[in-house]
């Protein structure tokens, strides 16, 4: 096992120590993270600056190594030849990555062009369905699904990948052994079983708001492509997209209704030339070239007659029982057909009895 060097670990310790100081200046977090240790202390250290510098001067990595081991983590530092090349493109790559779920597995997950799927924490049911379907399709072809495990789109993408037993990697804002948000404990557990979670923060660091944009830059740098599924105008997912563009990575976006606030972000990205992503195949074609990798095939039975008619009606906006009745379908018949469509995986019943057409794969 390769050991991270003390200097690289010191940076993690410094970030954890300065975590509280960085929060008030998080609008400049990209610049600040690009500074080296002493400059960073000068910039935000305040009164504690000189003391911090002397502690950093004779930093003892022992206790940190112990806590890493206690938390069951492993480390990869940038002096390590195996350190992910993608991160080198960042102005100042993280000095070390803390890994939960196994260093070798993590490196294997990153090796082959992972695709990042990111988006809003308050998505629409449409966004969730698409994120899950993208996660499934991309993972099906053996490509790693990369995301941030946040509520909403991120979690749905991970769930999609896990559903087909495919590879997935979560980049967490805080220490990787701790689920963040805490409500995603079960998802975190399943990700660690099948994939891995990483972070640039060592165990013991408290999650602060600046860590989210910082984490986003790692996602953008690790992914060969970043796909934005849904994002409001001020969503953090757009920061990930901006990083992807800055680093020269592929950028994709899922089109949505022009009236939907959650689709404002991706629609704007599309207007500025992002790749149009309709399904997993679109993303795979963009990364690997047309037809090189295949997303899983649609395994659902072909539809005909009543079922096809009903699916068309739902897709065209008659998405509740009353609306279907109004469109001329008999409720008795519609109830039967709806259940059949749901069983076949063509539609899903959402809150308020609203039906949504599920994407294939």
């Amino acid at each position: 096992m390769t050991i991270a060097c003390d200097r690289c670990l010191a940076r993690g310790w410094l970030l954890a120590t300065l975590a509280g100081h960085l929060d008030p200046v998080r609008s400049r977090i990209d610049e600040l993270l690009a500074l080296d240790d002493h400059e960073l202390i000068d910039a935000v250290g305040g009164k504690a600056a000189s003391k911090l510098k002397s502690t950093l001067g004779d930093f003892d990595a022992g206790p940190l190594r112990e806590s890493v081991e206690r938390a069951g983590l492993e480390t990869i530092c940038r002096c390590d030849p195996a350190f992910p090349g993608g991160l080198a493109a960042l102005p100042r790559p993280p000095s070390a990555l803390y890994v939960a779920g196994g260093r070798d597995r993590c490196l294997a997950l990153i090796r082959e062009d992972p695709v990042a799927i990111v988006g809003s924490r308050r998505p629409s049911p449409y966004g969730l369905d698409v994120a899950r379907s993208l996660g499934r399709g991309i993972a099906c072809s053996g490509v790693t699904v990369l995301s941030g495990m946040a509520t909403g789109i991120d979690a749905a993408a991970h769930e999609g990948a896990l559903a087909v037993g495919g590879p997935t990697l979560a980049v967490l804002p805080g220490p990787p052994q701790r689920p963040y948000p805490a409500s995603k404990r079960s998802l975190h557990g399943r990700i660690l079983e099948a994939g891995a979670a990483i972070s640039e923060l060592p165990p013991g660091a408290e999650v602060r708001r600046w860590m989210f944009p910082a984490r986003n830059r790692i996602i953008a740098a690790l992914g060969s492509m970043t796909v934005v599924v849904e994002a409001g105008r001020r969503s953090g997912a757009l920061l990930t997209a901006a990083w992807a563009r800055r680093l020269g990575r592929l950028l994709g976006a899922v089109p949505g209704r022009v009236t939907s606030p959650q689709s404002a972000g991706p629609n704007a990205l599309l207007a500025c030339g992002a790749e149009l992503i309709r399904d997993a195949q679109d993303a795979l074609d963009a990364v690997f070239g047309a037809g090189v990798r295949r997303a899983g095939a649609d395994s659902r039975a072909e539809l005909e007659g009543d079922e096809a008619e009903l699916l068309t009606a739902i897709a065209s906006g008659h998405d509740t029982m009353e609306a279907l009745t109004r469109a001329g379908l008999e409720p008795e018949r519609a109830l039967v057909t709806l259940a059949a469509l749901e069983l076949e995986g063509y539609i899903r019943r959402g809150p308020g009895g609203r039906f949504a057409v599920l994407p294939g794969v």
Partner: protein
Amino acid sequence: MLARLATFAIDGVEPRQVWVEVDIRPGLPSFTIVGLADTAVRESRDRVRAAILNSRFTFPQTRITANLAPAFLRKVGPGFDAALALGVLAASDQVPAAALRSYAVFGELSLSGDLRDSPGALAVAEGTRRAGLSRLIVPSQRGREAALVDGLEVIAVPTLRAAAEILMGAAPPELSAPSQSPAGAGLAEPDLADVRGHRTPLLALEIAAAGGHNLLLEGAPGTGKTMLARRVVSILPAMGRREAVEVTRIHSVAGLCADGLITRRPFRAPHHTISSAGLVGGGSPPRPGEATLAHHGVLFLDELSEFQRSSLEALRQPLEDGRVTIVRGQRALVFPTRFMLVAATNPCPCGFAGVGDRCRCGEADLRRYRRRLSGPLLDRMDLLVNVERPTELELSSPPVTSSEAARGRIAEARERQRVRLARSPARCNGELDSRALRRHVRLEAGAERVLARAYAAGTLSARGRDRVLRVARTIADLESREQVVAENVLTALSLRQRSSSEEASAWPQAASG
């Protein structure tokens, strides 16, 4: 001199015989009541005294002791007044004591000597017959109600004087004719013919009524959930006489009975701030709760998520057993609670999920909301239907169906169930448990396949499967089928209420929370 006559105390909704003994002895004038009497009974001394004097009798200026036996039973309320007054009159020889032997007497007195309306007359009448007494004196307002009990001579009198005269040999008055305008008459009863649009909810209502299934209505505010729920009683099969008498007795005890037999199934819609005692009965002395008042009818819980958790938890036993037991001190009271539960709820905290893009609830909000709702109560809800606002066009179109037409179909379906379930404790499909389901529900091969498929997909729990089977059986009954076909199962799947665990497996992002 000693006089003795029978009256009745109401214990829960059951009559308990009480003997009133009045003893008059020479001595300083005094009037004492003994025998575990509450304040209202002890106050009756003053009412009895004034009523006797105002009825042109004399109140004996001696030592009077009245005993209410058995002494261990708590006597509550003013219903003993008339019996005490007649006891005093008999003991002081103003009415013949021997005549009282075959009578039970029940009613409150006013100071003027009028017999006042008192709750529980029907229960008292039943008690009178059970005790083997042949005549009952009640206030005249309660005559028709008490006369519902066969084999009993009911004497309804307006005043103490009239009661005394009958004991002295006068002819009892005729029972009053049914009053021409009972409360609520003239108002049209809610009917399904008033409903425009709402075709799917109407379908669900019919299935629920046909199988006695509990029903959950989900929809944004103002879409017509309450309006629909009110109409469920209009399509339930008519009550038999035994059921009607039972309902009348309960409502009479609660003081809610207007006049005579209640023939319409009760519809109770308690406000969501109700306590668990208010819902299932309780208090001291224990009184029937809304669940008991809804016996043989419909209990409607609007804004289900707003009810206190403890209140809803308390509904569990009544829903499962059809009765609720309330223990107070050494006694256990049993209130019957066989009702159909209809509940209404908003689809999400803001209420607008499914209405355009108005809903602004996040995933966590929805999860919290579902959790509030989930639990034992939702497990008893077989059907869920979404209620949406009807369109302008639908509002001006003719009604889809009427209660009369629906009642016909439902009566037929119930008859099929009655025949099939003749030798089981359940009376309708809604009351079938897992074991009974296996015995009574025959699935066609296609239906079996659909159900297996839904179960394998993981979005159907074992309990959810039972719910689907019950409803599918009822739909087949409505279609006069002996075997359940695939279409019936599919319709039941579409109308099923999903517990939060089932919801979670359909929505993975919720499962991870």
